[in-house]
Each structure stands twice: as C-alpha cells, then as structure tokens.
C-alpha cells in the first residue's frame, strides 16, 4: 500500500503562499492524489485531487511531477482561517468484488498561520 509522508507541522504568516509537499514513493498506476483539510472538532473535507501535472481550483493548486512520487499542495495568500491539518492521500482500489477505494490517511501537516 502506498504510504504518504508529510512534514508534521509548518508555520506561515497571513498573505504568504504556503507549499506543503507529500512523498508517496509506492504510488500505483491507477492511484489519484487527494488532499483534505481538517479544522479542530470537525471531519476532514476535500480540497483538491489530481493524477499528474497541475490542477487548480478556487482554493488551491496541486503540482505533481512526472514520476508522481511526490506532490505539492499550494495555498495562495493564506489567512488565519487556513490554520488546520492538511492530509495527503493516495487511493487504493480494494481487491474484492466491490468497487470502492480505500484511502490511506497519514498523520497530516498542521499548518499554523500567524497574523
């Protein structure tokens, strides 16, 4: 199973761009890379997903190099409300008759944004 490795924590200031890198050396061919955000006392919520190159939405950008062994979540101009834990995940298809994907959550990166 593809395990992900992220920094335990990062600090930033309001208005800065933040890049959080995740390594996933054993990613499989059909795995997608997904990032979730979790605020205290809430469940994680989806931020962005990608397979290769670059994906951008209204919240973040995701950069994936050609070998797909790592990915970088980029948050432009962070604010205090972006303080949260960010999880990088890769999807694993289960080997049984169903069609669900098992997502492997690591420990995440605690991003602390200061004024």
């Amino acid at each position, binding site marked *: 199973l593809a395990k992900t490795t992220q920094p335990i924590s990062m600090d930033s200031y309001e208005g800065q761009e933040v890049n959080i890198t995740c390594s996933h050396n054993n990613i499989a061919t059909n795995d997608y890379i997904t990032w979730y955000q979790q605020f205290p006392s809430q469940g994680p919520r*989806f931020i962005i997903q990608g397979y290769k190159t670059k994906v951008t939405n209204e919240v973040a950008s995701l950069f994936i190099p050609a070998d797909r062994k790592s990915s970088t979540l980029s948050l432009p101009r962070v604010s205090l409300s972006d303080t949260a834990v960010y999880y990088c995940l890769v999807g694993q298809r289960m080997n049984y008759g169903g*069609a*669900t994907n098992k997502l492997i959550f690591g420990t995440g990166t605690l991003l602390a944004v200061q004024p």
Partner: protein
Amino acid sequence: DVKVTQSSRYLVKRTGEKVFLECVQDMDHENMFWYRQDPGLGLRLIYFSYDVKMKEKGDIPEGYSVSREKKERFSLILESASTNQTSMYLCASNSSPTPTGITDTQYFGPGTRLTVL
C-alpha cells in the same frame, strides 16, 4: 447540500458497556466508512461497507463490529467498551469510483468524541 450526520458529538461510557455509534448520509452513496482519530496517529480505518449488508475490515477492526441494514445508515458497535477505545470517531461516505479509478471525494461527519471510563 451534502450531509453526513453522526448521532452524538460527545459520549461518555463505562468499561464493559455496549456502545452504538450511528451515522446517516443523505447522498445515496454506496460506500460508508468508520475511522478513529488519535493524536499522532492520524485517521485509521476501522471498517467500511460498499453496499447494504456488506462490510469489510479496515486496518484496526479488533474490538469493533458494524451493521448496515439500510443504504443510508452505518453503525459502529463496540461490544464491550475499553479505555483504549477512547477516541474521536469519524464516519464518511462516498460513491464508487469510476471505471478508470477516479477516487470520489469522501464526505465526513462532524465526529463523535467517545470517552470510556
């Protein structure tokens, strides 16, 4: 708006009690999941279900069982609660992936913080 609800935000039980955690989703999702979250360990998958009455063990199923009698409802059962089951429990749901393997977003509930004394 997508919604996953859990029966309780906070729960306190005694060692040896049977505990039921309920999760309901209103998105007609095939898949439902139970995780526990502990400091320094992240989210760990306990059980998941890909259809009514169907279930599969996750990474840490010991001490837990599940029930899915209806598509929208997935229950986690602690047959005899122990102090090491004190944790935050998170339920999630999603649709099955596309044939090309695109992982659908998992939608999480707010969590139940269970304390076993």
